[in-house]
């Protein structure tokens, strides 16, 4: 079983397909779960505390805005654990504020720096593209090995 980072990190389809073909999807829910299940001081809504932008320094430089560093403290541990990645480009629902946009750019940059197997895709808009989308992911995950159906 290979740990596969998915981008967009909240993607239902990528999360499902990676798990379906026997690997472990690394999405933002895992980090959020860690954050909200850790005792500390109340800091709604995502239990991001003032410590998190400091932790984010591991993945982003000090001059990077604290919003991006705070977000990187959520994604960073997943980035470190990733052994492969699937990136869906131009995902409309990944559109967000400038903090999210810059974090997404940094995330993709760090993934590509990591020299792990990466599959680049776009979301399907027809049935034929749906076949190509699933076939691409299935063959990519098969090449990684260690999966099971």
């Amino acid at each position: 079983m290979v740990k596969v980072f998915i981008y967009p990190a909240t993607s239902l389809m990528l999360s499902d397909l990676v798990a379906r073909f026997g690997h472990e999807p690394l999405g933002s829910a895992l980090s959020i779960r860690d954050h909200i299940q850790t005792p500390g001081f109340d800091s709604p809504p995502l239990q991001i505390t003032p410590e998190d932008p400091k932790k984010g320094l591991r993945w982003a430089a000090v001059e990077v805005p604290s919003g991006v560093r705070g977000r990187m403290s959520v994604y960073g541990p997943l980035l470190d654990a990733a052994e492969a990645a699937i990136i869906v480009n131009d995902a409309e629902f990944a559109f967000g504020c400038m903090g999210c946009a810059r974090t997404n750019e940094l995330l993709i940059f760090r993934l590509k720096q990591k020299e792990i197997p990466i599959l680049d895709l776009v979301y399907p808009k027809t049935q034929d593209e749906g076949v190509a989308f699933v076939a691409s992911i299935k063959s990519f995950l098969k090449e990684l090995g260690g999966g099971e159906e």
Partner: protein
Amino acid sequence: MKEYIPEYVGSVTKYVFVDSPDTTPQDLAIAAYEVAMGVMIKETCFGIQVTGSPDEVSRIIDALRKLDPYHIFVKDRGFPPGDQRRCRANLGGARPGYLGHEYEIGLARFISYGLRETDTMNDNDLLKAAVPIRRASPLDIDDLSTIIETEEA
């Protein structure tokens, strides 16, 4: 600032989405209750949420997937159901994250078709089918200005 004592520590929550002509969220909920032991199951408009120990949730998900393998989609959720920071009962309006689900469930019919078609493919067929999706390039700015000038003339 007050002390934060988390709930459901050590549990996992998974969303089970269904987009099928044959299976409803109610079918999923009943099937999940039939095999569940000590987990929390919440039926929603799009499927169900299952919260419990990782092993138990995984066992239930495996059982549910068999109901309608091409039309059931599963993902992790960070928050447990009904969490005041996320539940729309407390916030009003759509729950944060709902719009993402709405967008992706619109693609479910293509993915379901893809899953059905690739199910019987061997490795070579998969490689042949895995063609990169190409989108038409955006209109070139010079072409656009030419069109505008032609229209004006």
